[in-house]
């Protein structure tokens, strides 16, 4: 006899793996700014770079922390809570991240330690060690995975940025898990003082190629609006943010062609700036 709980967990796990629901469950999204720009962020430098491209940490000059909550399709069981902290230590910038997805019967947690540093005037690199933990109730196996990710950021011109990021690049024989690997590359340009536009592409093992584009526009002083499109699930995104002193608060929304809207809110505090 199957218990109701097992059926729910099974459906949940199956639902997670359905193509079109999410491309790579280990490719975590964090930051409402990123959500508003359709996750076009591999070339960006901000606190959430630990989740997207650790090279972006290199340009961080403050002790900061941030919190994010993402509500996927208005289903609380699919919520993701994320936190990040960064600090400057000499030439390098260090970061620590935590993410929690799921609910009491299925949860996936990730903890990461990151480091980013400039290699030259226009090149920066970063690495991160990740620990994933997946827990399910009942007789299902729990899963722990240790892996890493790395990236580089390049300032090609004063207004053009390029980012490349790789997730879980270890050979299968070393990592002993079937966790997908991922590769992202993108470029963005400050088309004016107010407008930033970018495009990027991403692919994960077993998933289709995704192309994304997004923009960010400072509509009024301290008030920013964002938009974007992703070929994955034909997702349109939009969002806005406001800088209030040491804090930045952002909201982001992403549509799914079948499952509804994902909303995200995040807040960043810059405690001490060099």
């Amino acid at each position: 006899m199957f218990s109701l709980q097992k059926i729910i967990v099974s459906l949940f796990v199956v639902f997670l793996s359905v193509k079109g629901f999410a491309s790579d469950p280990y490719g975590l999204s964090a930051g409402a700014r990123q959500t508003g720009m359709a996750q076009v962020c591999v070339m960006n430098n901000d606190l959430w770079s630990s989740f997207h491209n650790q090279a972006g940490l290199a340009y961080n000059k403050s002790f900061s922390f941030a919190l994010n909550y993402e509500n996927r399709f208005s289903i609380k069981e699919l919520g993701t809570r994320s936190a990040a902290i960064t600090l400057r230590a000499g030439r390098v910038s260090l970061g620590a991240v935590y993410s929690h997805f799921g609910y009491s019967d299925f949860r996936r947690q990730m903890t990461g330690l990151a480091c980013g540093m400039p290699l030259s005037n226009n090149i920066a690199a970063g690495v991160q060690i990740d620990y994933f933990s997946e827990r399910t109730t009942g007789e299902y196996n729990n899963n722990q995975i240790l892996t890493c990710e790395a990236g580089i950021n390049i300032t090609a011109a004063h207004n053009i940025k390029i980012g490349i990021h790789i997730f879980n690049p270890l050979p299968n024989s070393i990592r002993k898990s079937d966790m997908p690997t991922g590769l992202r590359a993108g470029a963005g340009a400050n088309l004016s003082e107010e407008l930033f536009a970018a495009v990027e592409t991403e692919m994960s093992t077993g998933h289709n190629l995704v192309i994304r584009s997004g923009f960010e526009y400072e509509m009024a002083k301290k008030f920013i609006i964002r938009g974007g499109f992703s070929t994955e699930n034909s997702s349109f995104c939009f969002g806005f943010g406001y800088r209030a002193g040491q804090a930045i608060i952002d909201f982001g929304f992403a549509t799914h062609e079948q499952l509804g809207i994902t909303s995200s809110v995040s807040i960043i505090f810059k405690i001490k700036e060099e």
Partner: protein
Amino acid sequence: MFKSAAIIFLALLSGNTFCQEIKTSERIAAIAEELAADESDPGAADLFSDWLFDLTTDPVKINSGEEKEISRLFFLTDFQVKILVDYVKNSGKIVSSYEIANIPGFDRESAEMMIPFITLIEKPATLSESTRLRQTLLSDFIYKNNISDTPLLGSPWKILTKYKFTSGNISGGFTGKKDAGEKLISGKPPLPDFLSGYLTYNGTGIIRHIIIGDYSARFGQGTNINTGIRSGLSLTTQGYLTGRSEIRPYTSTDENNFFRGAATQLSIRNFDFSIFLSVNKIDATLNDTIDSSNQSIKSFYKTGLHTTSGTILKKDAVRETNYGVNFFYNFNNLRAGIILTETRFALPVIPDPVEPADKYNFTGRTNTIYTLYYNSLFKRFIFFGELSNSGGKKYAFVQGVSFRPADRLNINLLYSNYSPGYISIHGNGPAGSSAGNDEYGILGNFTFEAAKFLFISAGSDLKYYPWLRYRCSAPSLSKRHEIRIKYLPSQKLMFETLYDFRLSMVDSPDENKIPTQINIIVQTVKWNIRYSPSDYLTLSTRVDYKIVKPSNSKGMLLLQDINLRFRKFPVSMWIRYAIFNTGGYDSGLYTWENDLLNSFSIPVLYGTGNRAYILASWRISDKAELRIKYGATTTSVINSRMKEANEFKIQLKIMI
């Protein structure tokens, strides 16, 4: 602890990286991928790498101003060769490789393609320098863990050794090879599975060339004799469209398609004369007969693999004799020649069973071919053509024109017609297939510098097959269209987009009725961006998308290359990470890889998975270089479990 480790890692990266200065031209990589994808000519990519390696070891003396020397850059068009010759004669020596990009008819892309293979030195400074003994030894050891599930006779290592010496006009060398699964030493006398060698004399007088040992030959357009690469390499890549006659030492590793014996080329004023004789043993499958006196050849065995007792029986099973002559006369703007060749097998070729599609394949012992060819320069046109006959109404006809109406525009047109039954055992004519018979078609392409830094090239190739073919039991046609747009806004940045369309006809898979033909349409789009943020680093990102109809199988790929070199050590590194997802083999994607010297690796990626490799080159001294490559391909198999195929390669090159 973590911080320290991270700092060490990043500092190592930052302190010691600088740019990979030797960038393989995208055009070369594109040609290599195209050759690898041509399943009808599996050895072409290897041959291509051999020719390029020959050029790196003996760079073309661009300032010599001699057409014969400059035309060794086989990827240039005849126009480009002529322009270079005229430029050196009229404007003086080229003082910088980058000067080439400013010569009319050339661009930065052409110049980049040439740079690794040319020298600005006209000739050696002294006589003793020119006669000094130069030797090169290259040894490869290659291991792959996925070669076969069946028991093999030898070790899984592939071992290749090449040796070459040059002293003045004399040069020589040998190549020894053992494929994975073959015995290192076998036969009587005990020798490597494949051993090839040559001794050659190059002169400037009447005797231009003498080769004793193994050699390859190409005369005219190649419909008669061409053991090299077929003309018209790529639809959107110019060069090597018109024919160039040559005999050259054989240094490649195809174990069957070369000549063994002697060849010579004589030249008296405007008259050239070549003669060759070859007696070689080639691999074949023999028909089963009780009486050995009635033995015959069932088919030729071309893979060169002798890893089981069955394949060893095929090794050197038949003696093949080839001989021929080539007369060639240069009337200023018109050059014309006559070729006569004959191939004889010790045993008759009797295919069994004879499929309807094989009706026009070669049978018997002897094949004789007569050929007339010409090429002519007239103002901004180059006309070239060839007519070959292998007896009766069996002929091959090729006629082409290369037109350069402006410095920034080049147009080519080629018509080819291989009649039913025309056979050339060692021919490889333009626009033909390796089967080489019973097809006709037309090919056209152009390259155009549409604006500053913007290059557009496009081509179309139509072929008609009046008789049946493999997997197609009715007359059929194939089409191919390609367009390539390249934008090079600066020395550091390159954008390229390519669209390729292919249509071919095959039998419908429905087996329960008389087969009808369906169109297989393959469309591929590629985007490639290369960026060098500094002199110390080159990044390249590539996206491929392919769709096959009617199966609707899709293939996609995201690939990232990083090339760098360590500053404090003479070490270069090439790192690649690629993720692919294809519906099957038919939508698989070919990806050119940096590899050992004198070698290309162009794996076809299909299924779901990723491919990564790291290649390091350590220049130990001016006389020695060590290369090591580790590659891993992970693919998803049943139940999403991952299967990994690894390869490890090591190479030592010594030059004294």
